[in-house]
C-alpha cells in the first residue's frame, strides 16, 4: 500500500522533473560537483529507463558518464537508495551503491551497508547486472571487506553465493568472486556451503590469480571437511598450474599438499609431473625443504617416536605457517598406516600385540583406534571383546550391484564429454601461432624417413 502510494508520488515527481529536466541542460560531467537536483534527476531517470532492455542499455551508457561525479558525493547518496527498487532498477541501484561504498567506510556505516548490500544482491535482476560485471564484482569485494570489518563473516556467505551465481556466465566459468566467497566460508567456518561451490568443474578462467586462490582456499575447505582426496586434487592444481615465476600461493599450497599427501596416501614424492611449469619444478622444492620434505622422509621410516620428536623440534615453523593442526593429523595418520600394514600380514591379532607393534600405550587405545578405523571404512575387521582378538576380513564389496553399474556408466559419460573438450583444446593448441613457430623450428632436424606411418593416436 505504502509502496503504491510512494510510486504515485514518484510518478508526479517524474512529470515535474521531466519538465524541469527539459529546462536544465545535460547533467554536469567529471570535474564539477553534483548538486542535489542533478542526483534527483538521475534517480528519476533510473526509474524511467529501467523498463525495456534498450532503455537499460541507454541508461547504462548514461550512468557511465556520471559515475565519476557520483563518487565525489559518496557520503550523501545513501538516502536516495530508498527511492529506487533494487529488483527493477538494478543497474541504477548498483551504480549508486558502488558510489556510496567507494569512499572510506566507518564501522557503523559498514553495518548499515552490509544490510543494504545483502538485500540488493539477493533481489537484483541478473540481466541488468550482467551489463556491468566489473562494477558488480568490485562492489562485492568491498562488501566482503565491510563484512570482515564488522567481524561477522557469516553474514556475507549467503549473499556472496548468490552473487557468484548471478555473475557467472555459466557454471564452468571462474569469476573473481569465487575465491572471495571461499575465503569468507573459511573464516566463518561454514565449510559445507563452500563445498557446494566446489562441485562444479571449472573450464574457463580469466585471471590466473583467481584460479590459484580458488584452488588453494578450496583445498583448505576440503581439508576442513576431511575430504582429503578432493583437497589433494585442488592443491595439485595450484602446484602444477602454468606459472612463469614462482608465487607465494603455490609455495603455501605445496606445503599443504605435502601434508595432505602424507595423511591420505602415506607417502609423498617431492617430484612434480611433467605438466607442471619448469619454474615450479625447479624452485618449489627449495622453498619447502625445511621442514616439510624432511617430515616426509621421517614419516616414511614408519617410526612414530622419531616423527613426534621431529614435530616437536620444528613446532614454531609449523605454527607460523598455520599448519600445526594438519601436522598433528599427519602424526595420528601414522598409527592408522601401521595398523593397516598389519592387516596385510596377520589374519587375527590380539589387541595387546597391536598396541605393542604400533607403539600405542595400551590395548584400550588400540581398541579405540581399530574401532574408529572400522567405522570410517578404512579397514574391515571384527573385534572379539571376550578374548581381545581382532580378526581382519576381506573387503566385502563385490561390485555386483546396479548402483556400481550406474556409477561406472555416469563416469563413462562424463569422460566422453571431457574427451571431446580435450580434443577441441588440442586442435586449438595445434593452431596456436606460438606453438607452430617453435614446433616448426624443431622439425627440421628430422628426415621424412624418421616419421613412421603408424598413427600416434587411435580415434574411438
Amino acid at each position, binding site marked *: 500500500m505504502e509502496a503504491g502510494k510512494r510510486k504515485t508520488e514518484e510518478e508526479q515527481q517524474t512529470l515535474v522533473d521531466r519538465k524541469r529536466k527539459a529546462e536544465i541542460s545535460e547533467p554536469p560531467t567529471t570535474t564539477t560537483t553534483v548538486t542535489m537536483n542533478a542526483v534527483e534527476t538521475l534517480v528519476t531517470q533510473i526509474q524511467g529507463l529501467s523498463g525495456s532492455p534498450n532503455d537499460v542499455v541507454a541508461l547504462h551508457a548514461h550512468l557511465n558518464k556520471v559515475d565519476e561525479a557520483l563518487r565525489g558525493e559518496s557520503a550523501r547518496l545513501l538516502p536516495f537508495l530508498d527511492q529506487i527498487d533494487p529488483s527493477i532498477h538494478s543497474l541504477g541501484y548498483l551504480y549508486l551503491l558502488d558510489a556510496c561504498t567507494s569512499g572510506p567506510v566507518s564501522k557503523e556505516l559498514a553495518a548499515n551497508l552490509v544490510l543494504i548490500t545483502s538485500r540488493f544482491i539477493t533481489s537484483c535482476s541478473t540481466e541488468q547486472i550482467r551489463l556491468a560485471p566489473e562494477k558488480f564484482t568490485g562492489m562485492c569485494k568491498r562488501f566482503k571487506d565491510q563484512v570482515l570489518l564488522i567481524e561477522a563473516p557469516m553474514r556475507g556467505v549467503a549473499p556472496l553465493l548468490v552473487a557468484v551465481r548471478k555473475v557467472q556466465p555459466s557454471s564452468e566459468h571462474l569469476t573473481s568472486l569465487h575465491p572471495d566467497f571461499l575465503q569468507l566460508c573459511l573464516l566463518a567456518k561454514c565449510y559445507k556451503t563452500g563445498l557446494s561451490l566446489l562441485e562444479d568443474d571449472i573450464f574457463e578462467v580469466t585471471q590466473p590469480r583467481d584460479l590459484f586462490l580458488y584452488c588453494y582456499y578450496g583445498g583448505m575447505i576440503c581439508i576442513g571437511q576431511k575430504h582429503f582426496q578432493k583437497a589433494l586434487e585442488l592443491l595439485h592444481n595450484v602446484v602444477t598450474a602454468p606459472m612463469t615465476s614462482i608465487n607465494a600461493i603455490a609455495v603455501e599450497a605445496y606445503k599443504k599438499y605435502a601434508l595432505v599427501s602424507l595423511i591420505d596416501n602415506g607417502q609423498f614424492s617431492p617430484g612434480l609431473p611433467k605438466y607442471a611449469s619448469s619454474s615450479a619444478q625447479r624452485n618449489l622444492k627449495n622453498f619447502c625443504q625445511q621442514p616439510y620434505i624432511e617430515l616426509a622422509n621421517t614419516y616414511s621410516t614408519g617410526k612414530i617416536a622419531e616423527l613426534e620428536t621431529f614435530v616437536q623440534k620444528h613446532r614454531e615453523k609449523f605454527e607460523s605457517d598455520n599448519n600445526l593442526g594438519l601436522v598433528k593429523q599427519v602424526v595420528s595418520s601414522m598409527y592408522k598406516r601401521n595398523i593397516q600394514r598389519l592387516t596385510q600380514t596377520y589374519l587375527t591379532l590380539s589387541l595387546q600385540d597391536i598396541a605393542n607393534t604400533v607403539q600405542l600405550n595400551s590395548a584400550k587405545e588400540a581398541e579405540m583406534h581399530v574401532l574408529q578405523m572400522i567405522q570410517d571404512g578404512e579397514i574391515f575387521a571384527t573385534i572379539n571383546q571376550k578374548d581381545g582378538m581382532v580378526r581382519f576380513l576381506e573387503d566385502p564389496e563385490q561390485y555386483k550391484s546396479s548402483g556400481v553399474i550406474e556409477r561406472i556408466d555416469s563416469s*563413462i559419460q562424463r569422460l566422453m564429454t571431457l574427451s571431446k573438450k580435450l580434443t577441441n583444446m588440442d586442435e586449438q593448441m595445434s593452431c596456436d601461432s606460438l606453438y607452430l613457430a617453435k614446433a616448426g623450428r*624443431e622439425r627440421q632436424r628430422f628426415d621424412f624417413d624418421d616419421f613412421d606411418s603408424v598413427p600416434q593416436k587411435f580415434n574411438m
Partner: protein
Amino acid sequence: MASSSSSGLTFKLHPLVMVNISDHYTRVKSQMNPPVTSTSCSNTNGNGNGAPAPPPRVYGCVIGVQRGRTVEIFNSFELLYDSATDSLDRAFLLKKQELYKKVFPNFYVLGWYSTGSDAEESDMHIHKALMDINESPVYVLLNPAINHAQKDLPVTIYESEMHVIDGIPQLIFVNSSYTIETVEAERISVDHVAHLKPSDGGSAATQLAAHLTSIHSAIKMLNSRIRVLHHYLVAMQKGEIPYENSLLRQVSSLLRRLPAIESEKFQDDFLMEYSDTLLITYLAMFTNCSSTMNELVEKFNTAYDRHSRRGGRTAFI
C-alpha cells in the same frame, strides 16, 4: 498396363543383374555434367528451378537360359540408346551376343532392361524391335529412387501380351512375379557390398564396430516392435480398440516364454559381467583421454614454457 501375366512362365533373377543395372545407372548419373541431384529432390521441386536435370535412363540387354517354363536371367550388359532411330544399338548388341556365346554357349538374349519408375509407351518400340531376336522378350525395370519405407526390391519384370483393347489387338506390358536365385559367389559379393556402407550411417571401420552396429540395429528393431505391441495393448485396455482374444493369447504365450532364468545367481553373474565390460570400456576411454592430454601438454610445453627440454616428437606407443 499392370495385370499379372498369364503366360505361366516362372522367372528367376540373379543378383548380378541387379547389381549391374544399378552400377550402370550410378556411373552414368555421376558422370553427367552438371551433376544430377537425387531423384526424390527433383520430384518435389518439379522442374521449377531448372538446375537439377531429370535422372538419366540407361538401357541394356539381359541374357540367360530358358529351360521349359523357367526363365533364368543370369547376366546383363549395357547398350546405347539411339534416340534418333528410337532403338537400341543393334550392331553392338550382335557383337556382344557373339562374344558371350563363345564363353557361355547356353546363354541367349532374353530381353532388355531399363531404369525408371514405371513402364512407358515408348518402351514398346524397343520391345518390339527386340522381338526378332527373341519372340517374347522380357523387360526388367529398376526403380533407382531410394525409398526407405519400401521393404522389397524395386525391380519389376514385364512381359508383353496381346490384348484386345477398344477392338484393336495391342501388345501391352503385364507384370510378372519373379524369385531371386543366388549362386555362392554372388552371395559373397552381395554381402560385401551390403556391409560397405551400413544403412544407419557412421563408419564401421573395424569388425568389432560392424558387429556391434548390427546388434544395435537388431535391438533397435526389437525395441520399436515391442513398443508398437505395448501401445496396442494399452489402447485395448483403455477400450479404444475392441478386444481381440487370439492376439491376446499369442501375447500371453510369448510372455510366458520370457525369462528362462530369474534367480539370484543369474542376477549376480549378469551384473558382474556387465560391470566388467563397462570397466573395460572405461579403461579404454581413459587411455584415449590420457593420450590426448599427453599431446596437449607436450604442445603447451613447447609453446609456452620458456626453458622446455628440446626433445623430439616420439610416438606415444
